[in-house]
């Protein structure tokens, strides 16, 4: 018998506080596996956001900073600029990155900071109890959009991958989903590729991961992934939006 799947050294022994079926757990694992497989775990410094994954600093088995809400790309910039030889990544949710932190992520991309960002898009604010996010879909209900998101009132959801792909310094921009095993495997490939680009000194990279929030969407974990597939993927198309090989 050969072991074909076991827990990576990139995760600590801490049991996560995430809800049953929360896809943070899957993405944490993909990030941790990628760090280990690329041989950078011992050289890595991660920056945790404010949101459900605020305690990510307890789960990744590397040096970690807790950042203020939205500021992770600036914190990562400070770290990478003084330690250019280390691997620096941020892990952020949609409130952190797409709301309060839009200036920081745009400018990290704009300056071409050689960091990697994992962006968890679950179309809602999880930790604070299910409020609307910039990524909440039109018609989707949230505690601060009890009648469903109204486009006339507060616009359509923000497509971060497409937006950042217009920035020259954003050399790797890809959107993936973790709603089934095939997509999870593709997500890992994208994350690993994004991390590889940092190691090659190519510039800023981001992987937007369409994720589920069963608790605040009001679904079982299995139903939530179905909702993701039927509603989020049509609005947030999967694929690579920017790739250093295409860019000059």
């Amino acid at each position: 018998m050969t072991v074909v799947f076991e827990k990576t050294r990139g995760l600590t022994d801490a049991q996560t506080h995430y809800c049953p079926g929360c896809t943070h757990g899957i993405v944490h694992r993909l990030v941790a596996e990628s760090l280990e497989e690329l041989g950078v775990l011992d050289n890595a410094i991660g920056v945790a956001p404010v949101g459900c994954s605020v305690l990510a600093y307890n789960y990744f088995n590397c040096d970690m900073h807790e950042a203020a809400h939205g500021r992770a790309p600036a914190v990562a910039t400070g770290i990478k600029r003084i330690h250019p030889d280390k691997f620096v990544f941020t892990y952020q949710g949609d409130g952190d990155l797409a709301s309060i932190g839009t200036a920081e992520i745009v400018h990290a991309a704009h300056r071409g900071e050689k960091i990697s960002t994992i962006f968890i898009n679950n179309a809602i604010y999880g930790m604070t109890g299910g409020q609307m996010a910039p990524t909440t879909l039109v018609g989707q209900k949230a505690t601060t959009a009890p009648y469903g998101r109204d486009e006339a009132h507060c616009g359509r959801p923000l497509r971060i991958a497409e937006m950042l792909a217009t920035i020259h310094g954003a050399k790797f921009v890809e959107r993936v989903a973790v709603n089934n095993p095939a997509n999870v495997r593709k997500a890992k490939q994208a994350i690993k590729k994004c991390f590889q680009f940092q190691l090659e000194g190519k510039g800023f990279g981001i992987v937007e991961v369409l994720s589920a929030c069963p608790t605040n969407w009001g679904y079982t974990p299995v139903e939530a992934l179905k909702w993701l597939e039927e509603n989020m993927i049509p609005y947030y198309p999967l694929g690579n939006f920017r790739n250093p090989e295409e860019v000059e």
Partner: protein
Amino acid sequence: MAKVLMKGNEAIGAAAIKAGCKYFFGYPITPQSELPEYMSRELPKIGGCFLQAESEIAAINMVYGAAGAGARVMTSSSSPGISLKQEGISYIAGAELPCVIVNIMRGGPGLGSIQPSQTDYFQATRGGGNGDYKLVVLAPANIQELVDLIIEGFDIADQYRNPVMILGDGMIGQMMEPIEFKEPKKRNLPPKDWATTGTGGKRKPNIINSLYLAAEALEEHNKRLQAKYKEITENEVKVESYNLEDADVVIAAYGTTSRIAKTAIAALEKEGYKVGLIRPITLWPYPYDEFNKISDKCKGILTVEMNSGQMVDDVKIAVNGRFPVHFFGRTGGMIPTPNQIAERVKEIYGGEK
């Protein structure tokens, strides 16, 4: 060593580099923009990194990252920009990280004016950001002192793992005076084994954090912080004073205002008035004990500030009712004149010498 004539804002940069600081994250704002400009020219020459951040908020968070990763790092701004930094400063203080933050004060509140003021005394000494924390606040009165305090400030920050604020004003930033670089007093600086430098597979991960979800843990953390602040209070007070034993009126003033006060005192002395001076150099920890040296014959303390009355509160705390405390201030970027100060002293005298 020959002295060099330097503009205050640039002297700050030169002093920081002398102290081994190679990283600066900042943003333009009058009257301190010459400092980021200086750093943008000089840091690449020594293999350091200057970055103009997208905002003062981003800049303080870059400082937070770099400080947590073990570097000597500085940021600067002026009053409205320092307001933006308050969140980041609270995080830095809570995570117990060293750094130097320079505030070249201008008129306020809000967008205010671009002329000098001392209007952020409360912000610097009473928090500004959320939570129970203290910054070591250093207030130079001339460019040489500015240079000395910055060099020592990096050591203070490292020794206590605490942010240090240099509180200047537009005059300090813009004026030119001759300076020389001196060796600071030797301090035992602990190694930064808490910094995020990558585990190397040789140690457990270091975590830079100010979040303690368990209230008991946060209370313990706060007790540790308070113990540290007590230690700083016992060891780091700096103050200049004179004529306290003989004075009928004592002026309390800091920064450039103290220089104007000194001119007023010299003029009053010629007219036979006996006036003393207390010039706090550390605004936190505040030199409360210095006020005990004032003799009982004193008729009153005149606090002079370029604001509506902020340090005057600390003077009242210091004298604890022993003397009447008076206040004279100019706001909006207006600068008091020696004559205006002298007239107020005479009023306190009540016409008698």
